[in-house]
């Protein structure tokens, strides 16, 4: 076992110890096919939670998106995102000559699965913010890739904004039924439908 694999197992173990990281596969089974998971974004831990909720054999092909300037700024951060999580780096500052989705397109061409948070930033209001258009562009370029909505619940209680030590509280990740871009669906309708698909997975307050 390499150091990166050991680190991955350790991180997954800690995530499970703190949050349970239970994956509820409601609309689909965990399967080794090419997928784009898209989820609500409330905390820095969201990616780790989805990753830990996936079966171990799917983790290697499922890649997160990382902001290049931040996650390559120190050797450890770079090593963690590159070797352990196999992250796809994107530039936050948009330059005119480059499409910001280019690295994602390349990863999908390689056959990898992606996890994206289409809100673009963390939301704290309970309801997810409107989705950014990246998901639409990926869906139209790769119609054969399954789009899986996911709802991450309770994670904002584990580590509220501004705190560094997580509190052990059980969290769940609910995966919904795969969806696709309809033939004559426009961008806004699709993004609204995708957001609704994520929100229907939210567990009902009992």
């Amino acid at each position: 076992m390499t150091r990166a694999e050991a680190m991955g197992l350790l991180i997954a173990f800690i995530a499970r110890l703190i949050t349970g990281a239970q994956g509820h596969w409601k609309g689909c089974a965990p399967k080794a096919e090419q997928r784009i998971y898209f989820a609500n974004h409330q905390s820095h831990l969201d990616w780790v939670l989805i990753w830990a909720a996936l079966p171990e054999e799917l983790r290697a092909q499922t890649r997160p998106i990382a902001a290049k300037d931040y996650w390559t700024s120190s050797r450890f951060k770079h090593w963690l995102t590159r070797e352990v999580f196999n992250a796809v780096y994107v530039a936050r500052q948009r330059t005119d000559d480059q499409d910001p989705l280019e690295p994602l397109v390349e990863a999908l061409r390689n056959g990898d699965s992606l996890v994206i948070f289409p809100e673009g930033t963390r939301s704290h209001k309970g309801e997810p913010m409107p989705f950014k258009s990246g998901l639409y562009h990926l869906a139209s370029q790769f119609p054969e890739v399954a789009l899986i909505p996911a709802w991450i619940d309770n994670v904002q209680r584990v580590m509220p904004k501004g705190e560094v030590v997580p509190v052990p509280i059980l969290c769940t990740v609910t995966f919904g039924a795969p969806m696709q871009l309809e033939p004559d669906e426009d961008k806004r309708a699709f993004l609204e439908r995708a957001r609704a698909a994520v929100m229907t997975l939210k567990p009902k307050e009992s």
Partner: protein
Amino acid sequence: MTDPRGWDVDAQIALLFVALFGVLALVSIVVALRSIADDDETAQRQIQLRRDLRALWLGASVFWVSWMLGPVGATLAFGVISFLALREFITLAHTRRGDHRGLILAFFVVLPLQYGIVGLQRFDLFSVFIPVYVFLAIPVVSALAGDPERFLERNAKIQWGIMVCVFGLSHAPALLLLNLPRFGGRGAFLLFFLVVVVAVGQIAQELASRALRLRPMVRQIDRSFSLRAFAAGVAAAAVVGAAFFWITPVEPLRAAAMAALAGGCGTLGELVMRALKKDAGVRYWGNRSSVTGAVGLLDRVAPLCFAAPIFFHAVRWYF
């Protein structure tokens, strides 16, 4: 075969575990055989039964491993269970943002310290650490977080969770490590005795309420709890306790009294947990994960959390 009472402590304890795992294996085989013969109708019950069996195996294994590893292992094993139970409790307690520091204190300072004290067998400090020092420390940390909304309620929740999940449960390894005169090293028997009588008390109560169709005393909380069923549970625990008197340091009558006490506390503990679940809006924790992913560990250890402290002090006072 020689009389086991003449054997040394380790051999007696080995015999205890052989008997325990033997019974479990037997039950598992019977269940497995019956599941082949049965039709679909009982399938749901079979699944439930198998889940309960798996939990029993797990519990017995934890018991065994904690014994094998000695004081350190016992404290560690119960510490982990305590951690998981408290995690489940806090998940259901709907804490606020201002509770964060207090919760960190509970999970990462109070819990390890309490089990550390158990491991060191400092039973005087062990009895006052949480009820006195932590009780005063939690609201201070909470006040420093600066959120006055529902202040008392939030602190009460955290304190209650620590009392039950950490303080209560930590008496189980304490029993294991308790060094009684003329009974040295046989703590495993005491813990085994406690778990058996608590389990018997609960099962008997459940069976009695089902068989007699008694009127529930507190319909809003628990449909199976009634005074007569409770009495049946206590009586069954007492009978089993008397039958098992030879693994305790006391004579049959006192063993029966201690068993009745533990069985009664366990059953009442379960009733309290039911009330808590109703309040949190969880109907069935079972082993099926609920909305929050709570997996029902708290349910299983709650009777033990209530019975262990009472039993522990009953044993200590008697000697």
